[in-house]
């Protein structure tokens, strides 16, 4: 039976639904563990070893090591969970969000000050800008 998912044609956007949540369970729970200072310290001391304690896929682990947030999201990560990695790295939410757009930190900040990304041309995949 097919489900109603009207949000698959929104460009540059992954909706964290029940299916994505299922895929990303261990990845997101790893992120959650970073809310404890002692875990942050252990992760920073040896990232690979810490990740190997979690039943995550190799792709998920590599995406975390690369700090490739778009890849993490494609593999079931959710931004509010992934933000714990950013916090561990001392990054702000703006730095994290900007890192997914292909813009530099300065360009992204400037875009936000000028009123943000326009919805024009950004509502449907393949829409003319």
């Amino acid at each position, binding site marked *: 039976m097919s489900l109603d998912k009207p949000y698959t044609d929104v460009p540059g956007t992954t909706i964290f639904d029940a299916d994505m949540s299922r895929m990303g369970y261990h990845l997101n729970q790893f992120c959650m563990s970073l809310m404890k200072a002692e875990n942050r310290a252990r992760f920073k001391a040896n990232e690979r070893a810490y990740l190997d304690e979690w039943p995550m896929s190799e792709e998920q682990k590599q995406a975390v090591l690369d700090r490739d947030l778009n890849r993490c999201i494609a593999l079931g990560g959710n931004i509010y969970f992934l933000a714990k990695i950013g916090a561990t790295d001392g990054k702000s*939410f703006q730095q994290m969000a900007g890192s997914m757009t292909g813009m530099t930190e300065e360009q992204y900040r400037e875009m936000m000050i000028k009123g943000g990304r326009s919805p024009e041309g950004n509502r449907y995949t393949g829409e003319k800008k």
Partner: protein
Amino acid sequence: MAKISASVFTSHVPAIGAALDLGKQGEDYWKPVFAGYDFAKQWEKEQKPDVVFLVFNDHATAFSLEMIPTFAIGTAAEYQPADEGWGPRPVPKVIGHPRLAAHIAQSVIQDDFDLTIVNKMDVDHGLTVPLSLIFGQVDAWPCPVIPFAVNVVQYPVPSGRRCFMLGKAIRKAIESYDEPLNVQIWGTGGMSHQLQGPRAGLINREWDNMFLDKLINDPDGLSKVPHIDYVREAGSEGIELVMWLIARGAMSDVNETKKGNAPTVRHRFYHVPASNTAVGHLILENN
């Protein structure tokens, strides 16, 4: 009997909390944001609410993927500000109102809304940033708060319609409480923002202002807007705005059994940006 005197709506951007906690409110970037809340601080001193019923969402703080309730009401005596990875915000602990919260849970569940009753929960920026914006930097929050958490993180999230109807059930519950309490209901989150993917940074000033207009004048119509419109127009995280419909649904003018007059708009504010987000704020007095 208890009564709802007003509804207050505001964004709850974490960077606003950080700016306050680090003493940056005088910086040019932040000045216009905080100026939008000067009115609320003065107004609250006159209103002196006995309880705030605060609708917010948890951001992977109290609720991990182990369990995410769609609607959760806090019935605890107190709640600690959470460590979200940057350390807990240096703000007072939140004092609850267990007796009223339990009364509301009983009434609202009997009205067919499946609330999860929570007795232990740390509260994140979704709850503490609105308190800071509306009450300012204080040693203790001026009144007890009932935290009401809505899942807007893991889709499908509740529809705007369901949130609006839930607000009506909450009003009925509060008005059947046997103490003469002055209760405010706050709806928080939004406005337009997207924090993920190549489309991060989306802001839609026009849609946000349409939302504010309709929230005031046509909440019933607004409650019928489907999720996909929020995602397309206001960004994937703009979906938080459905929580505003809970607070709006608790106002007297949409009470079907004893219809009150339209609320008085005491304050309206809109500003872009605070970090990644459009900031909206509205105060409606019940009539």
